[in-house]
């Protein structure tokens, strides 16, 4: 690939040197992410890097609320407490003695797509790349919870990680999920991602994995799981990460009583190539993307162009929680063309033309359209 001519200023050379120090630390030196913020770490993937079944670490988005904690794996402990007949503490060595389970699952930020809503709302302005598909390996949380003997009054588990806000008045990132989901056989305390130990940015040494559910419950750097009769009353469970049921009009304020915690993801597809604004030749253009859903598996993906819907081929075999790569060859003629993709799941769930507006900008799943310039 031709590289552009870069004027070599001393500043650039210093920057390149600093960059190479960074590369030396990176697990995948040839990857690039898009920096929404460096402090705390919030990075999304460029879409062209997401068109494969498994997303490599070099293209896996990173979301954080606070500074990345440094956790000593030897000193790390996971505490299970609260309404537990036998509170327990586990080290990494303890976890390694349990049967290990691997689940392939999409991880998507609740706010993926926030920047696309109108009217706009505050928050990290993700576009479409805050998502990835990986294999997650660890111990089933139900096994660990069984060891702690949950009391009959327990209805929720509250998940706490090692990350912490700087100021005392800032609420910690704490999430509660129903005990039922925590006991689901696919909910994991994962130590590995794509077959390798979790990296610090992805929650080392262990994180919660809730396949099929929105990313806000996949707590990184997990240290404490507390059984309780109620959800945690603090901000990140009681106020944040809630979706209006039913939704209101764009821009409409919603009374708190109508805001419910999110759980399953919704049906979604994203075109990973060609890119929006790309120039292509007349004839057939190969459209590639990924599609995934909540409880019901993807049934079909239609690629939309010039009033026609072409059923895309879905690659590989479906997995319970992973995404499907789709491909379609779309005829295009000279001029400007808009290409869309719409996924439908087995329960008829599909993507709306306009996103379902909500005050926090969550669960964006409107049909993705890319505009192409077609010329010889």
């Amino acid at each position, binding site marked *: 690939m031709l590289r552009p001519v870069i004027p070599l200023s001393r500043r650039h050379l210093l920057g390149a040197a600093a960059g190479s120090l960074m590369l030396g630390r990176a697990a995948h030196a040839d990857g690039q992410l898009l920096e929404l913020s460096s402090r705390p770490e919030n990075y999304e993937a460029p879409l062209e890097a997401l068109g494969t079944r498994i997303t490599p670490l070099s293209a896996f988005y990173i979301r954080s609320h606070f500074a990345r904690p440094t956790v000593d794996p030897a000193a790390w402990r996971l505490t299970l407490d609260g309404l537990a007949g036998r509170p327990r503490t586990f080290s990494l060595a303890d976890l390694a003695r349990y049967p290990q389970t691997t689940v392939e699952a999409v991880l998507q930020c609740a706010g993926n797509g926030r920047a696309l809503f109108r009217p706009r709302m505050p928050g990290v302005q993700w576009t479409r790349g805050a998502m990835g598909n990986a294999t997650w390996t660890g111990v089933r949380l139900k096994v660990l919870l069984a060891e702690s003997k949950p009391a009959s009054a327990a209805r929720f588990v509250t998940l706490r990680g090692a990350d912490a806000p700087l100021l005392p008045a800032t609420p910690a990132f704490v999430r509660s999920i129903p005990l039922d989901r925590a006991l689901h056989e696919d909910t994991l305390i994962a130590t590995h991602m794509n077959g390798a130990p979790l990296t610090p940015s992805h929650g080392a040494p262990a994180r919660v994995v809730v396949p099929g559910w929105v990313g806000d419950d996949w707590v990184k750097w997990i240290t404490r799981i507390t059984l309780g009769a109620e959800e945690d009353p603090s901000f990140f469970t009681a106020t944040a990460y809630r979706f209006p049921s039913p939704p209101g009009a764009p821009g409409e304020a919603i009374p708190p009583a109508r805001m419910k915690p999110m759980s399953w993801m919704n049906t979604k597809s994203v075109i990973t190539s060609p890119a*929006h*604004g790309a120039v292509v030749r007349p004839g057939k253009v190969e459209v590639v993307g990924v599609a995934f859903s909540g409880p019901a598996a993807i049934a079909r993906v239609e690629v939309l162009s010039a009033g026609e819907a072409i059923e895309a081929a879905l690659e590989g075999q479906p997995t319970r929680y992973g995404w499907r790569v789709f491909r379609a060859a779309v005829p295009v003629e000279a001029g400007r063309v808009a290409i869309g993709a719409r996924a439908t799941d087995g329960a008829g769930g599909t993507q709306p033309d306009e996103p379902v507006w909500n005050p926090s900008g969550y669960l964006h799943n409107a049909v993705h359209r890319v505009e192409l310039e077609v010329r010889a």
Partner: protein
Amino acid sequence: MRWATALLIVIASACTRPDPAARLDAGTHARSGAATSTAAIAVRTTTAADMLALLPQSGDAQRILAERCLLCHGLEHVAQQRLPLAKWTAVIDKMARWGTPLAAGEAELLARALAEALPPELPDVPPRRVPTRP
């Protein structure tokens, strides 16, 4: 034309690593919303100091941002928002509840300055590409 200048703003972190200079195709990032990046589009980075200088006219707003807001997060968090005054006010109120020290009148001053500099109609600036972190 300040908004046109603002188009060139990308907020660098404290550890700036200059990217190769390239065009910013303003047409791709118009009202239709934040477009996905294309291979042809990169961004001209600037330092946090540059961003401060281009933000709100009032030196007081720049000072407040640098002294108080940067305690917890980088300026990119501020610069990527696109909000009307009422929503800027609500965000700053929340930040104050979360511990940001703000004297009487400073929250309103900051909200007005940010609403003028970063309103909803200002086009998005694509984020810069960086090497993958560990």
